[in-house]
């Protein structure tokens, strides 16, 4: 694909986002803001046990309570058989999600949903939950991922046999899957190496930490037609999941996207939505459900905690001779950790001949883990970039020069197998090295660390429409929830193609019945994928505008060109006509063929991978162990930034979340298997006053598969921070931290031990 010349009017500019005013004034409607007449309150009874068999659930007293209109358990939803667990080729296992939404036979973690009620008031709903009698047979539990792999560990699923090993195991295990990637011969590579460093690392489960809790309203009419309002990362996904989990046809309900207050991967999957829909269908009334913060922590997200070992050998000249890693990821209560992506991403920034990576997906009595920004990649990068830092030190090499010497480029065979096309790994590392931050002096007790990161970026399905209004303005309709400013990007793309002002275009995120199917807003795919659909729909409009102008001039459409927002004769041979602006043609639409409306539905391909290089300065209080990030610079290849402010916002947000992961955030369980810190007071995410302004540098190595060169940007910025912060702490203290988070007590202990 030829990339359009970078002389854009709107692409690359920074207009105000269409939803900005509503969001800063509080007018925007998030999930919990909706209400309907005769609305019921839905609530969920959750397990206090991390592992127990459900002997019986008696809801009769709750159902008899005045004001209770519906009660539901897993018995009210169809059990999805093993051979029907998937929808199409999607990797989501709906048999597992069904058991996660409402527990069936066993509860598998503290907070697992057991039953639900809908009542005329929150107080009555709470009273009803208290009347539900659950007979639990408490079972031994296992929380830690390494403990879960032991032969004597309590087994969560009797039907779970380790996949990816030969011969197939003959007894069930908590190890759901083994994956392995190899290139070359690591044994021979290590034999040649002058320096070999091997380290073991641990990371803790962390939550996506979105500010908005999960919320939903479902309403069902007498004819069985339902409507659902909820925030999510994909209302088409919510529709598919509800249909699958409840066994109802997709045409029987419609999902409206509420504004979403953050997702980061944690709002891809269903939690409350099918339950609210079920309660609404049972009661015939609207049912609203909103999670408390404690419920969000106990029962949604998080991403995996992990144990990993990394071994890297290098030659004196700085070439990496061999690299090995073993990644063991917590999946939570059901299989499905992002260990595969972790294995594939960690060494991807580098051209290494001999690589071996092994990954294990392990279940334990924690909430089912969920995607979190570049799922798996930050954990792998933490260990690998830490070891690379240590090797650079031992070889007395500049850490960026060391990475540049080994950097992947076009034609490099990635550690997970395929060859890279056009990529910007070297460009991001070079931009980091050239940044003033990298050479700036450090103060007392300060240290500097760098780290690199990679993410694939994905494409997917999208539908979009561009409708021209009678006055020459236009409505852009697409179907991806706007999390990071995509309304603005879609309007910019349409404005660029149509040649009209950004302010003349209103972008709309349509509900599931108003536009064709759209994939989820995840995988850093929306600006790429939905943007391609909008681009094609706008081109469809341009074709129609040329046709209408040709009719108005009574000449051939081939003799009409569209330039800078007006139709012109292609040459003087075509005739002498004054240009027709879009508004001129729109005003005549009724007389030239009717409404002008462009459409596009596509399965996009060609998402370009992206790389990041981060520089972090920390200051360490040697007396308390407190680490303060004093300066941070993130460099990233965006391909082409449609709206640079929102690219920068993604970069800053990813960095902040990575810093939280590095310094403070962790799920803490008691010996009883219960989560001890399900709230923001005890689960410490960084706030604005904790951090400096995160400096950003956008590198643009255009993706050759996109008309403007777009690459995904939302995920790679969370990949390097954990390693960058850790490397900075090592620089400041001389102590290599191998366990996250580096909370003050943990760092203080390491400083006192000197290791």
């Amino acid at each position, binding site marked *: 694909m030829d990339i359009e010349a970078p002389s854009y009017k709107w692409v690359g500019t920074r207009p105000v986002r269409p939803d900005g005013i509503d969001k800063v004034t509080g007018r925007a409607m998030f999930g919990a803001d909706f209400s309907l007449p005769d609305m019921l309150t839905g609530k969920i009874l959750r397990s206090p046990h991390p592992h127990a068999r459900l002997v019986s659930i008696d809801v009769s007293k709750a159902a008899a309570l005045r004001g209770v209109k519906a009660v539901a358990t897993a018995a009210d939803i169809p059990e999805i058989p093993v051979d029907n667990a998937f929808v199409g080729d999607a990797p989501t296992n709906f048999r597992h999600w069904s058991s996660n939404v409402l527990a069936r036979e066993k509860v598998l973690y503290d907070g697992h949903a057991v039953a639900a009620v809908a009542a005329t008031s929150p107080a009555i709903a709470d009273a009803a939950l208290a009347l539900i009698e659950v007979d639990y047979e408490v079972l031994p539990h296992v929380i830690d991922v390494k403990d879960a792999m032991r032969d004597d560990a309590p087994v969560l699923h009797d039907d779970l046999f380790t*996949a990816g090993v030969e011969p197939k195991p003959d007894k069930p295990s908590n190890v759901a899957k083994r*994956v392995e990637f190899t290139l070359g011969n690591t044994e021979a590579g290590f034999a040649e190496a002058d320096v070999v460093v091997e380290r073991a690392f641990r990371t803790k489960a962390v939550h996506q930490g979105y500010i908005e809790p999960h919320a939903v309203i479902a309403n069902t009419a007498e004819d069985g037609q339902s409507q659902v309002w909820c925030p999510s990362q994909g209302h088409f996904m919510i529709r598919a999941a509800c249909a699958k989990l409840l066994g109802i046809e997709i045409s029987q309900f419609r999902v409206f996207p509420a504004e979403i207050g953050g997702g980061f*991967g944690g709002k891809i999957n269903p939690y409350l939505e099918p339950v609210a829909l079920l309660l609404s269908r049972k009661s015939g009334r609207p049912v609203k459900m909103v999670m408390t913060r404690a419920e969000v922590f106990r029962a949604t997200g998080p991403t995996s905690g992990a144990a990993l070992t990394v071994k890297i050998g290098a030659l004196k000249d700085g070439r990496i001779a061999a690299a090995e890693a073993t990644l063991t990821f917590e999946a939570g209560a059901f299989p499905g950790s992002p260990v595969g992506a972790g294995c594939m991403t960690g060494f991807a920034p580098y051209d290494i001949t001999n690589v071996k990576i092994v990954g294990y997906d392990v279940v334990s009595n924690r909430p089912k883990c969920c*995607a*979190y920004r570049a799922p798996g990649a930050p954990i792998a990068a933490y260990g690998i970039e830490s070891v690379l830092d240590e090797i650079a030190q031992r070889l007395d090499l500049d850490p960026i020069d060391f990475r540049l010497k080994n950097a992947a480029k076009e034609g490099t065979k990635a550690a*997970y*197998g395929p060859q890279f096309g056009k990529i910007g790994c070297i460009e991001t590392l070079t931009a980091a090295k050239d940044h003033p931050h990298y050479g700036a002096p450090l103060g007392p007790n300060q240290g500097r660390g760098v780290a690199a990161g990679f993410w694939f*970026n*994905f494409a997917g399905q999208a539908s979009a429409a561009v409708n021209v209004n009678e006055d020459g303005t236009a409505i852009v309709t697409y179907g991806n929830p706007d999390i990071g400013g995509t309304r603005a990007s879609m309007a910019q793309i349409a404005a660029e193609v149509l040649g009209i002002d950004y302010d003349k275009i209103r972008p709309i995120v349509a509900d599931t019945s108003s536009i064709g199917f759209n994939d989820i807003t*995840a995988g850093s795919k929306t600006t790429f994928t939905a943007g391609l659909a909008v681009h094609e729909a706008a081109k469809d409009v341009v074709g129609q505008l040329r046709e209408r102008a040709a009719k108005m001039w009574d000449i051939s459409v081939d003799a009409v060109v569209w330039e800078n927002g007006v139709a012109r004769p292609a040459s003087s041979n075509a005739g002498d006509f004054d240009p027709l602006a879009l508004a001129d043609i729109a005003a005549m639409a009724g007389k030239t063929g009717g409404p002008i409306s462009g459409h596009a539905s596509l399965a996009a391909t060609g998402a370009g991978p992206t790389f990041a290089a981060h520089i972090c300065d920390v200051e360490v209080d040697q007396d308390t162990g407190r680490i303060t990030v004093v300066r941070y610079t993130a460099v990233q290849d965006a391909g082409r930034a449609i709206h640079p402010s929102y690219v920068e916002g993604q970069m800053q947000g990813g960095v902040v979340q990575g810093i939280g992961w590095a310094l403070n955030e962790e799920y803490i369980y008691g010996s009883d298997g219960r989560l001890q810190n399900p709230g923001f007071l005890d689960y410490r995410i960084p706030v604005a006053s904790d951090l400096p302004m995160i400096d950003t540098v956008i590198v643009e190595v255009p993706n050759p598969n996109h008309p403007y060169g777009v690459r995904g940007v939302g995920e790679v910025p969370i990949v390097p921070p954990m390693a960058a912060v850790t490397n900075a702490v090592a620089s400041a203290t001389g102590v290599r931290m191998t366990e996250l988070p580096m909370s003050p007590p943990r760092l203080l202990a390491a400083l006192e031990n000197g290791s």
Partner: protein
Amino acid sequence: MVLTNWLNQRFTDGEPEIEVSAGTVRQLIAELDGRFPGIGAELEGGMAVAIDGEIFPDPFLEPIRADSEVFFLPPLEGG
């Protein structure tokens, strides 16, 4: 085309790289299943594919050239 370790241990007697003539991913899987019975179900079970370096999370009709390099990869999702 290239298979992951587990698949080649289970189906191809340890051979990770196999020459296959196919015009699409669907044809490739069918061809492989003919030569290594049972591998088709595994490959269709949510695996991603990389064709000449480009990853397709949900492959089916993607074209494959005569000199293409194809990798089967674990299912992938973003956040």
